[in-house]
C-alpha cells in the first residue's frame, strides 16, 4: 500500500522540514489565484458582466468577451474526477509519490491538484473532497485536497 507524503507539519519538538515542493509559476493573469493561496484562500475567476466562471484564468470571457473580471471565494468542495500515482521518475520536490488528481469543483470546473489523507487504493471517482493548503519552496502555498469531513 502506498502512504502518500504527509503535508502536515512535523511535531513541535522536531525542527519543521523545509518544504521541497516546487513553487507555483506565476503569470500576470493568474497572480490573483496564487496570492490568495499564500493567504490560505481558495478563489476563482468569474466574468464581472455575465458571471461565467473560467479556468485556467484568462483576460477575456469566452461567452460575452468582457475583460472585466471578479475574484470570488470558492466553497473549496469538489469531487475526484481522475487520479494517478507517478512512480518513475519521482516528481521533483517529492520524497514519495503523491496522488495527483483532477478535481471537479462544486463551481463547475476542474483543476489538477493532490489528494491526501486517503490511501491510493481507496480513492474512488466522485469521492467528495475539500481543499486545504500545502507549503512550497519560497514560502508559498498551493491548494490540495482530502476527503471531505462528514
Amino acid at each position: 500500500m502506498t502512504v502518500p507524503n504527509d503535508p502536515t507539519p512535523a511535531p513541535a519538538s522536531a525542527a519543521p522540514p523545509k518544504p521541497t515542493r516546487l513553487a507555483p509559476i506565476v503569470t500576470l493573469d493568474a497572480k490573483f489565484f496564487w496570492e490568495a493561496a499564500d493567504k490560505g484562500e481558495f478563489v476563482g475567476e468569474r466574468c464581472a458582466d455575465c458571471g461565467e466562471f473560467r479556468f485556467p484564468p484568462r483576460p477575456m470571457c469566452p461567452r460575452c468577451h468582457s475583460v472585466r473580471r471578479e475574484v470570488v471565494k470558492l466553497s473549496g468542495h469538489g469531487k475526484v474526477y481522475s487520479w494517478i500515482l507517478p512512480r518513475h521518475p519521482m516528481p521533483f520536490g517529492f520524497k514519495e509519490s503523491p496522488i495527483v488528481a483532477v478535481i471537479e469543483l462544486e463551481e463547475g470546473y476542474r483543476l489538477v491538484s493532490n489528494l491526501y489523507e486517503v490511501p491510493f487504493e481507496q480513492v474512488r471517482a466522485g469521492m467528495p473532497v475539500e481543499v486545504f493548503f500545502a507549503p512550497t519552496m519560497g514560502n508559498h502555498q498551493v491548494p490540495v485536497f482530502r476527503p471531505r469531513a462528514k
Partner: protein
Amino acid sequence: MARTFREAAIAGVGATEFSKESGRSELQLAAECSKAALDDAGIHPSEVDGMITFTIDNSDEIGLCRCLGVKDLAYTGRIPGGGAAAVATIYHAMALVNAGVCNTVLIWRAMNERSQYRFGQPHTQAIGPQAGNGTGSLLWCMPFGAQTPATWESLAAQRYMQQYGVTNLDLGRVSVVQRKHAATNPAAWFYGKPITLEDHQNSKWIVEPVLRLLDCCQESDGGVAIVVTSLDRARDLKQKPVHIVGACQSIPYNVEVISNYYHADLALMPEAEGTARRLYAQTGMKPSDMQMAMIYDAFTPQVLKQLEAFGFCGRGEAKDFVKDGHIELGGSLPVNTNGGLIGEAYIHGVNNIAEAVRQVRGTAVNQVPNVQHVLVSSGMAGAILAQG
C-alpha cells in the same frame, strides 16, 4: 507558377539512423535526413521553396537552408502542439502546393532527444508556459508533481479507463503488437526484440495504474524528412507518387495538447473526433476505405482512443478490437507496421508518416498487401494517403 489549384503528393522520404546517441548536432541530423528525402524524390536541394517543422525543433530554417544550398525560400512556418500536430505538417504542405504558393516543400523533424536532453524526464524548466507549444496549462500541473509527459497523459487516460473498464493489461496488447512489428523492421531500435504480455506486465510502473515502462514510446536521436510537391510533378519524379487525398487538423474549444483536462469529457478525444469528421467530409471517405493506419503512439492509451475517434470501432471497443488481432499484420487494419514510436523510434510522429508513404509505395519491410489508402493520425491532425 500560376496560382491554380493543384493536387499535392509526397515525392520523397528520408531518415537518419535511429539511435540513443547520434554523436552529431541536431542540425546535422536535419541536413542529412533532408538530403536523403530530396535524393529519394530526385529533386536537387537548391530547389526547395517551402520549409515546415515543429515549433519546438531546435534547428534554424536559415541554418538548414545554408546546408542544403536553398536558393530562394518562398515560405517557412512552424507547427505548434508538439507531436500531437505532427500530421499538421502534411496539411500545411498540401495547402501550400494546392494554392500554388510553393513547388517543393520540405518537412523535417530532427532531434537528439535522448543524448542531449530527455523528453521523458520532469519538464520543470524545459517547456513551461511558453506560447506555441500548445501546452500552456502545464504551469497548473508542475507544483503537484505532474511534471512528465507520462503523468500528463495518464490524468486523462485514467478517466478513459474508468469509463470503459480498460486495464493496463489491455494497453499491454498494443505494445506487444507494435514490438512484434518492430522486431522485423531493421530500421527499428527494437529490431529483433519482440516482447510478450508477461514482459509488459513485469515492466515497472511509470504512472500507476495507467502506464508501465513498456506503454511508453522511446526517447530517440534521429531525423526524418518528407518532400511534398504537386501530384503532376511527382508522377515524373523517381518514386511512385503518394497522393495526399486530404489532410486537416481540429482543435475544439477548451482542448489543448497533453495538459488537456478542461473540455467536457476526458474519456473522449474531441480533437481526434473533430479531425476524423473533417477529414472524412473533406475526402468523402470512411473508415472501411482504409487498409491500414499509422496512429500517434507516444503512449498506448492514445492508440485505443484514436481507433475509436476515427471510427474503426465503437467507443470503448478498442481494447477488444486490439485483443481480437485486428491491428496486427494480417489483421483487418494493421496499425503502426514499422513498430511505431514505441518500437521503431520517437521522431515525434514523423517516422510514422514516412512508414505510411512506404506502405502506399509498396516498399515497406512489413508490407501490407494491396494498400490503397492509409489513415495517418497524430491526434489533433490527420491525413489520408493513397496511390497517385
